[in-house]
């Protein structure tokens, strides 16, 4: 039972990074690798705010930190015409130094004994701390989904979706492709930054290495969710991110609790899960071809 509750709560927080990656990878169709940097950036900013006694300011600043990271990647990509993957890697690498600077040169910062957003709300809510934590995470996910669904129904959001679908059409319909790509990447990375911040509050420390593998984890959630929810509207997409994220946490929790794998095997497991999920279309293709060839042999 604690396994399920733990996965539910972690899954809800990590759904933010899944949604961020959904926006860049699926909606905008840009493989943006900034995630690992913006995640840690949000985490570092949040840690500094919280230790300074401003847990609420931390939320806004971690959003802003992620947005800034997204802006840098977007400018590298659109204005300097650096391929998206490289732009993301450049930002991510640069952010490593920035993150260390934010955290005053130390590679980790503990939040034990200081008031985080969870302590703040948990003290007010009439529930046990575990339930309160789930509720707070749920509220964050719900607010983000509501805002994003509304955003993608505006002209601006629609333009972002169109650019991910057909860039040429976007240009010939008088959309500034650079502007909307930039906006999309800002929104995506802002979410990832917020996710980093909330994770810092949740686990009680900020660590420079926390960002490693985050991209794969987010992508895994997106892919798993897609397998369960087939409808491809924005709302369905975002909900599938949440669902995928929770299921992913559950799979990991079960895998670790069977004691077949040590806890440090998590990253390898994530990579394998994503690799398997991404190879499903190829598997289907080979299978179909194989069956067609077999038919010819019999004839």
């Amino acid at each position: 039972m604690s396994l399920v509750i733990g996965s539910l709560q972690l899954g809800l927080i990590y759904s933010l990074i899944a949604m961020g990656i959904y926006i860049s990878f699926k909606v905008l169709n840009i493989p943006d690798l900034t995630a690992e940097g913006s995640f840690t950036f949000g985490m570092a900013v949040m840690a500094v705010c919280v230790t300074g006694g401003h847990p609420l300011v931390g939320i806004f600043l971690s959003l802003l930190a992620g947005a800034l990271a997204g802006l840098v990647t977007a400018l590298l990509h659109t204005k300097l015409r650096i391929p998206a993957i490289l732009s993301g890697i450049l930002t991510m690498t640069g952010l490593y130094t920035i993150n260390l600077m934010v955290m005053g040169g130390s590679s980790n910062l503990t939040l034990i004994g200081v008031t985080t957003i969870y302590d703040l709300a948990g003290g007010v809510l009439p529930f046990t701390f575990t339930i309160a934590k789930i509720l707070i995470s749920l509220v964050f996910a719900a607010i983000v989904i509501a805002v994003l669904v509304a955003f993608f129904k505006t002209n601006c959001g629609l333009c972002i979706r169109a650019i991910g679908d057909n860039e040429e059409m976007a240009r010939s319909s008088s959309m500034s492709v650079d502007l909307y790509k930039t906006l999309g990447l800002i929104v995506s990375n802002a979410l990832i930054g917020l996710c980093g911040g909330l994770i810092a509050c949740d686990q009680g420390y900020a660590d420079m290495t926390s960002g490693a593998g985050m991209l794969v984890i987010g992508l895994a959630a997106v892919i798993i969710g897609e397998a369960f929810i087939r409808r491809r509207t924005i709302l369905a997409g975002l909900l599938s991110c949440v669902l995928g994220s929770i299921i992913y946490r559950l799979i990991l929790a079960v895998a670790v609790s069977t004691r077949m794998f040590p806890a440090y095997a998590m990253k390898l497991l994530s990579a394998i899960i994503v690799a398997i999920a991404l190879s499903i279309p190829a598997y289907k293709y080979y299978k179909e071809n194989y069956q067609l060839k077999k038919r010819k042999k019999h004839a």
Partner: protein
Amino acid sequence: MLEIKDLQKSFQKDNGIESRVLKGLNLIIADGEFVTVLGNNGAGKSTLFNLISGTILPNEGTIYLDHEDITFMPEHKRSKFIGRVFQSPMKGTAPHLTVAENMALAYGRQNRKNFNWALTRPLKALFREKLAEAGMGLEDKLDSKICDLSGGQCQVVALIMCTIKPPKLLLLDEHTAALDPRTAEDVLAFTSKIIAKDHLSALMITHHLEDAIAFGDRLVMMDDGVVAHDFAGAEKAELTTEQLRTLYHLRES
């Protein structure tokens, strides 16, 4: 009015040789004039369209639209008042968005209010009305994805998207070449209906000699980077496909 003066464009090939595609092209299209453009492959028709719509920039010469110099205006700015329908049905639309969403994107081209709702009830009603004019049953497909439509329906949607806010100039880049003959006829008939209704200035590239004669008020034949022949009025009405065919052969010999 579109006014093109001494337009030149050359491309650098991989082996360093410069190929001159447009060699000082001059063309004036009056308001409300519908011009069909013929020319063999490599005559520079597509390059001309790319220069007018701003996907590439010319080496020499100027392009004026309604007396405004648009030679170096960025593509997304001039597409506010230049509509373009491409040969491939998938090129002018976002395939995974719905018909209504595509129309909303096109509707916003001249004055996009970024933070207003993209689709409202009155807008949908307007789109339905515009789609019904085509008589292809598209008014019931407002919420279907473009990729679920047939090629002909796609081109009609693309055409309506370009003309829903009447543009100053409509560029039709062999927009019926990928369609079956029957559908091509329907789409062409609808095209000329829209052009006539909104008094649009339009340029239409085609390789179909009968269409080039039957449609439009003027026929322009390009050859080797310039306008080689220009027929208007009675002169165009009396043209036969045989005469045009001779003009193509004349060049080869």
